[in-house]
């Protein structure tokens, strides 16, 4: 059970569906706010890298000098990556040098793995420990290969579309586009488990 004020979720606000993630964070009882720079990041108990265009977000992260900041944040604090966020969490991308991912999770990812927009879809999806959710896939990636410390939480058509490694949770689909708050609540559980930031100096 997540209590009110359970954490401050920062949503990386360089490009993408930022307001949708902030609203989704708030629906779980956490507070949600936009993170544009290092100072904003310091105020966050957890970080979301939202859906958007991974090439554009990666370029803006580099320009802001946030790559190492996000890596070290992810070592200590919960991180959720949705779609483009999943791509950026990867260690390696399949047949695609760009964008250089952040490597916070031991996964190899295929961008646009389900095809172009005409192939984008929504479907019911069975998620381990959560149940059936409505999952919206938009030019979505999938996890091509996962290391031994990665726990697979959902597959679609045999492809890994949700996984976690320690405090990092990634989805190839968009939980922020539906009213079902269970995936964000699951993430909020990780924030509770990690405790408030002031008790855990990085």
């Amino acid at each position, binding site marked *: 059970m997540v209590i009110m004020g359970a954490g401050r979720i920062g949503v990386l*606000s*360089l*490009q*993408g*569906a*930022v*307001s*949708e993630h902030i609203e989704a964070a708030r629906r779980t009882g956490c507070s949600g706010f936009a993170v*544009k720079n290092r100072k904003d990041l310091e105020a966050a108990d957890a970080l979301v890298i939202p*859906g*958007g*265009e991974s*090439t*554009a977000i990666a*370029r*803006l992260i580099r*320009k802001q000098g946030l790559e190492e900041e996000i890596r070290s944040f992810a070592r200590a604090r919960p991180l959720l990556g949705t*779609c*483009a966020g999943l791509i950026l969490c990867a260690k390696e991308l399949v047949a*695609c040098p*760009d964008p250089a991912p952040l490597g916070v999770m031991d996964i190899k990812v295929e*961008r*646009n793995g389900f095809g*172009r*927009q*005409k*192939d*984008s*879809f*929504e*479907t*019911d999806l069975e998620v381990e420990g959560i149940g*059936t959710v*409505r999952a*919206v*896939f*938009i*030019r979505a990636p999938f996890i091509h290969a996962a290391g031994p410390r990665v726990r697979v939480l959902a597959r679609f058509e045999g492809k890994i579309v949700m996984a976690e490694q320690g405090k990092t949770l990634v989805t190839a689909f*968009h939980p922020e*586009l*539906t009213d079902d708050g269970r995936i964000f609540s699951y993430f909020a559980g990780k924030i509770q488990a990690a405790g408030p930031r002031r008790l855990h100096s990085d």
Partner: protein
Amino acid sequence: MDGKKIGTETVKRGMAQMQKGGVIMDVVNAGQAKIAEAAGAVAVMALERVPSDIRAAGGVARMADPAIIEEVMRAVSIPVMAKARIGHSMEARILEALGVDYIDESEVLTPADEEFHIHKKEFTVPFVCGCRDLGEGLRRIGEGAAMLRTKGEPGTGNIVEAVRHMRRVNAQIGAVCAKGEDELMSFAKDLGAPHELVLEVKRQGRLPVVNFAAGGVATPADAALMMALGADGIFVGSGIFKSDNPEKFARAIVNATAHYLDYAELAALSKGLGAPMKGLEISGLTREQRMQERGW
């Protein structure tokens, strides 16, 4: 279990939501598309000519040659959009068959139908349409548009019309929200908008789809201005590849869109870009030359 469904409203509108805070750039070949992608564009619009060249060339402007669109699709990994003429459902079907990610039913091209826009709900591919006011925007959503943009005045490098249209849409959203539900049928009639969608605007306090700015963005400051006026993102037509230095302008406009409230950053990124595209004074255009008058 409810199985896999493509082309749903959520999937179409969601695609536009993922583009928010980003810049969509007009390109006419693979080389330009690569420059746009490297600069951080969230999508490219594949065209035969940018709007200022369409304006200069005159004659009938049509959908681009599919060979150009395919060349651009092969060149980049970001989404590729393409334009169909207003009301030209067959150009739209051809673009859909090519697999473009979004279709712009655009006043930049010569309209094919002066009475009816494309019935966009029938398509799997999502559409973006231009609007000058809330009524026009909601009519397009009623036909199935999954994304809106201001019309502005394309190919002019003059931001004044985009500003006018964005302010008008936002003022009318404000008016809808301020009214009681009992007043909204009458207001829907005044706007020329579907009543159901006016009620939806009142419920959500905003448009039910993403609304970008387009039609006259030529500098990073123009992009930042439109973001500050409430645009969800930016289309740049001629502004990049008709400037002195497309790489610099592309990067600067992307950065200005992301950091539009950081004035020191805007000052820094506006320095030494070279000349922007040469602009046109709107009052120098005849009614026939004003692309925004196309469509209804």
